[in-house]
């Protein structure tokens, strides 16, 4: 017979701390092996060549103040931005009325910052958003408030970008939820309608939709019924947001185990209450990263409204370049416009990371 190895523990093994992690030093990181050494040298050479040129252009040869004459045959023409920033940021809005778009932009900035911390996620904040949106539209238009009327065709720049983004997302989001639910519905009619809407909108380039909204829509409406360009562009952007948000939200709905709904229903919660308290909070939490993606895409897509004659931030910047007294400083203008877009999109992206982290506190399985 085989001998059996028996064992009985007398003393417990000591519990010891884990050995310290060795952090790789910079030298190892940059010159650890042949490939990384080669890459380090190559990148350094490129930087040595490029950085002085960029610095010359952006700093040493740059024109910081003065008029258009000084900018010919010089480096970066920052003076242009100093002179033209109201036109770049606010388009062709009447210059003597430009305090109005400034107030609008500041109001949106303020309500956005206020809404960030969790303690301010209240009904009052939601009402605040509604107030800011409505009063911004009134202030920009002016006539209802007894100010000089400014038609939407003359609105421009940052307020257009902000208004189109905020409106198309706030209207598109509930619409997207309905579409996502419709697509999963047991009712065949609802399912077909939702699938049809989503697939048609996703199948068309946004540009086409904007053209349809701008040119085809007026032809289809009866005489005398008109929408301004801004509303038409808003309809197209809202459809676009709704269709894409719907697919993202549907992904979230699918990620939930069936037991969640069953448990809620078994407790006697109705369909709506189950949706509101159990299904949607979890579904939306699960898709924050792709949701952020869609939001950022919508922000940048507002720049396409220039094709229907609206001056958003990007096209307002372009129109500033047509002044013959200045040497069309494209790069400088695009740097400013790009910087504004970047700040908005990067801010959204950082905030969503924080949100994801905050909502997962304690929830992870």
């Amino acid at each position, binding site marked *: 017979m085989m001998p059996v190895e028996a064992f009985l523990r007398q003393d417990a093994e000591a519990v010891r701390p884990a050995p310290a992690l060795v952090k790789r030093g910079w030298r190892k990181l940059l010159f650890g092996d042949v490939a990384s050494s080669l890459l380090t040298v190559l990148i350094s050479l490129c930087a040595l060549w490029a950085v002085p040129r960029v610095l010359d252009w952006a700093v040493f040869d740059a024109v910081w103040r003065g008029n258009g004459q000084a900018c010919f045959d010089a480096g970066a023409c920052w003076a242009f931005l100093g002179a033209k920033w109201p036109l770049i940021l606010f388009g062709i809005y009447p210059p003597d009325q430009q305090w109005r778009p400034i107030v609008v932009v500041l109001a949106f900035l303020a309500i956005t910052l206020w809404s960030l911390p969790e303690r301010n996620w209240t009904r009052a904040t939601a009402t605040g958003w509604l107030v800011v949106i409505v009063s911004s539209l009134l202030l920009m238009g002016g006539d209802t408030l007894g100010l000089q009327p400014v038609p939407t065709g003359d609105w421009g720049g940052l307020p257009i970008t902000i208004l189109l983004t905020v409106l198309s997302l706030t209207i598109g989001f509930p619409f997207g939820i309905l579409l996502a639910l419709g697509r999963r519905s047991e009712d065949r009619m609802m399912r077909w309608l939702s699938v049809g809407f989503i697939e048609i909108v996703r199948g068309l380039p946004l540009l086409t939709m904007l053209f349809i909204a701008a040119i085809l829509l007026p032809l289809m409406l009866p005489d005398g019924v008109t929408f301004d360009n801004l509303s038409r562009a808003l309809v197209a952007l809202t459809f676009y947001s709704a269709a894409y948000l719907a697919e993202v939200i549907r992904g979230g709905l699918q990620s939930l*185990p069936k037991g969640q709904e069953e448990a*809620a229903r*078994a407790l*006697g*919660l109705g369909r709506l*209450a189950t949706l509101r308290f159990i299904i949607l909070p979890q579904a939306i939490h699960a898709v924050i990263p792709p949701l952020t993606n869609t939001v950022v895409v919508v922000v940048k897509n507002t720049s396409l409204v220039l094709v229907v004659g609206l001056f958003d931030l990007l096209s307002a910047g372009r129109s500033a370049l047509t002044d013959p007294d200045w040497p069309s400083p494209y790069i400088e203008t695009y740097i400013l416009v790009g910087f504004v877009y970047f700040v908005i999109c990067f801010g959204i992206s950082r905030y969503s990371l924080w949100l994801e982290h905050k909502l997962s506190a*304690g*929830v992870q*399985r």
Partner: protein
Amino acid sequence: MTTSPLTGEEPPAIVIDGLNKWYGDYHALRNVELSVKRGERIVICGPSGSGKSTLIRCINALETHQEGAITVNGTQLSSNFKAIDEIRRDVGMVFQGFNLFPHLTILENCMLAPMRVRRQPLAEAEERARHFLARVRIPEQADKYPGQLSGGQQQRVAIARALCMSPSVMLFDEPTSALDAEMVKEVLDIMVDLAEEGMTMLCVTHEMGFARQVADRVIFMDAGQIVEMNTPAEFFGNPRHERTRTFLAQVLH
């Protein structure tokens, strides 16, 4: 529920009459007949796929049936939403997979339905939630999230959550099957407590020790039918159907 003046007997808690259910062409429940008295404790066992989970899920309409009638405390289950909601309020259910709401704290898990469905004010809902959490012996976990609890603790929360709705009937769908062996007892202990307090219970479970200890009747199901039904003593001591004997031989090693 009133006592019948004619017979002097309380009406049954659940009456299932001629229940038939199909999944597509598969006949999942075949003419099931069952009457459960108030305060009665019933254990349903059987091989997997025998229809035992489907049967208790029909009682609170998580599954729809095609033929037959189910009556809970005098309310007949129909496709009428009001009747379904009324029955669900009165019938608690505990699932194999716990199904706690991971985005809510333990306390919120227990308070949501009483506040939304029974319209209890916050203070009352919280007091009751804490009371039932104490009864399942985890009052100190109230502010944690489900993900921070062990499986056994989660299942005890699920029981407390159901009890917060003051149900008159509790359905258990394999409540210990997803648990590590070390945690089965802590959940069974709570179920024994409940049984001893006179709760009407239908338990689908493979815990034969539990069945012997608390059940008034044990039901054995196979292929969508009730095959044998008897007191635990008779069921385990003198199983009469061939199929029951082979099943018991496999479960009771």
